């Protein structure tokens, strides 16, 4: 396991050429393998930026590549990363809807709470609390701003890369980031004042 800034090579040049770019309906297993290994880690980052809970990232990645494999023959060339990015976005949305229902169903009181019984170091607890607060704040932002903020500030993508993925102008990304930061700081300030008030 390692945590590194995202490798942007896959974003700059599509790893799969030929049949996909040419629109041929046949995609060999080797081409899918190339696609998978080039984009898997990106898909996990994107899923997280779209608000997928960490525990469900594997499921979302699996579903994304299942959809990608099924639809590879329909891909008529263009920017592969953007295509997979969109699939990830749709899959994550669907997954979040289902996860919401599951959360509602299984907010089990007193059952399945083994994590709460485990002794947790103070640092880990503080980190977890910070992550929870972060999720709270991000969930109050609009999806576009949140995604741009998450990809730029947390996952380390550049503005140009986000613009390519989203299929928008660079200035649009910077505008979203500007508003997202402003929202984030305002929400944080409000949360702080509420904490002090209680």
């Amino acid at each position, binding site marked *: *396991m*390692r*945590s*590194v*800034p*995202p490798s942007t090579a896959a974003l700059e040049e599509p790893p799969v050429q030929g049949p996909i770019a040419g629109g041929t309906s046949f995609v060999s297993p080797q081409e899918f393998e190339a696609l*998978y*290994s080039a984009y*898997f*880690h990106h898909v*996990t*980052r994107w899923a*997280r930026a779209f608000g997928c809970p960490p525990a469900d*990232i*594997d499921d979302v*990645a*699996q579903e994304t*590549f*299942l959809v990608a*494999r099924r639809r590879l023959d329909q891909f008529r060339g263009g920017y592969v990363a953007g295509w997979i990015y969109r699939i990830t976005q749709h899959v994550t949305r669907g997954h979040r809807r*289902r996860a919401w*229902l*599951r959360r*509602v*169903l*299984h*907010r*089990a009181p007193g*059952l*399945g709470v*083994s994590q709460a019984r485990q002794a947790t170091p103070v640092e880990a607890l*503080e*980190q977890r609390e*910070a*992550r929870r*607060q*972060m999720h709270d*704040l991000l969930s109050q932002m609009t999806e576009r701003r949140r995604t741009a903020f998450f990809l*730029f*500030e*947390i*996952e*380390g993508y550049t*503005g140009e890369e986000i613009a390519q993925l989203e299929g928008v102008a660079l200035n649009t990304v*910077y505008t979203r*980031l500007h508003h997202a*930061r402003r929202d*984030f*700081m305002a929400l*944080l*300030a409000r949360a*702080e004042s509420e904490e002090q008030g209680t």
Partner: protein
Amino acid sequence: MKRLSDLPADDRLSSRAQAMIRAMGPTVESEERMRRVRRSLDAPAPVAAPRRGWRVGLALGLLGVSAAAAAGSSAVSRALGFEPPAPDRAAEGTFPSEGKLSAPFVPPVPVPAERVVEAVPSPLSTPPTTPTPGSASMPAGAPTLRAAAPPLSDVARVHEAAKALRHDGDAERALQLLERGAPVTGPLAEEALALRIEASVTRGNGRQAKLATDYLARYPHGRYRELAKKALSESKQ
């Protein structure tokens, strides 16, 4: 454009924001995860129930509710005197017998305001058998709108059961909803089984061990395995 974490933290708010961003951290790249997901891509997909089923159920449900609403508004308008009240044929015992209907459409029986509530499909009502007016399966005095209540879809059953268990604390009703009729299949089958375990634990009917064993056999890596294991261990004590 610089990242927030690269900017100098001038004030307390900025330093807290930076700390939160650091706490989130970028996604950890895991080769093991990559291999695991790759393996699961080639695994046979679980058989899911066709999605059309719940859509049909939802459509039928909406139809039933709209019919009930129409009858309710009709009853209210009659009560308010917007139109002359029709004779209460059900009360007079003059319900047309089978085969003597002159028109294919049977106008709804005037329903008093308090009975309109009954007409809305209830999750606890038995699956309707769509009796015809005057037939043996439908008493003369029964509200005819009940016949329009469609069977609950799997999604609706699980949803109602979850509400009964969590909101109303009615484990008995949750079990009834989940166990009456055909077992829940499709994407929410796992949730339904986990809910049955939880309801059985709450009710203390001693069936949680069997259900938990069933769950662990069907979903060894399921989302609610902790719940099942806990129910199993509690039942052994």
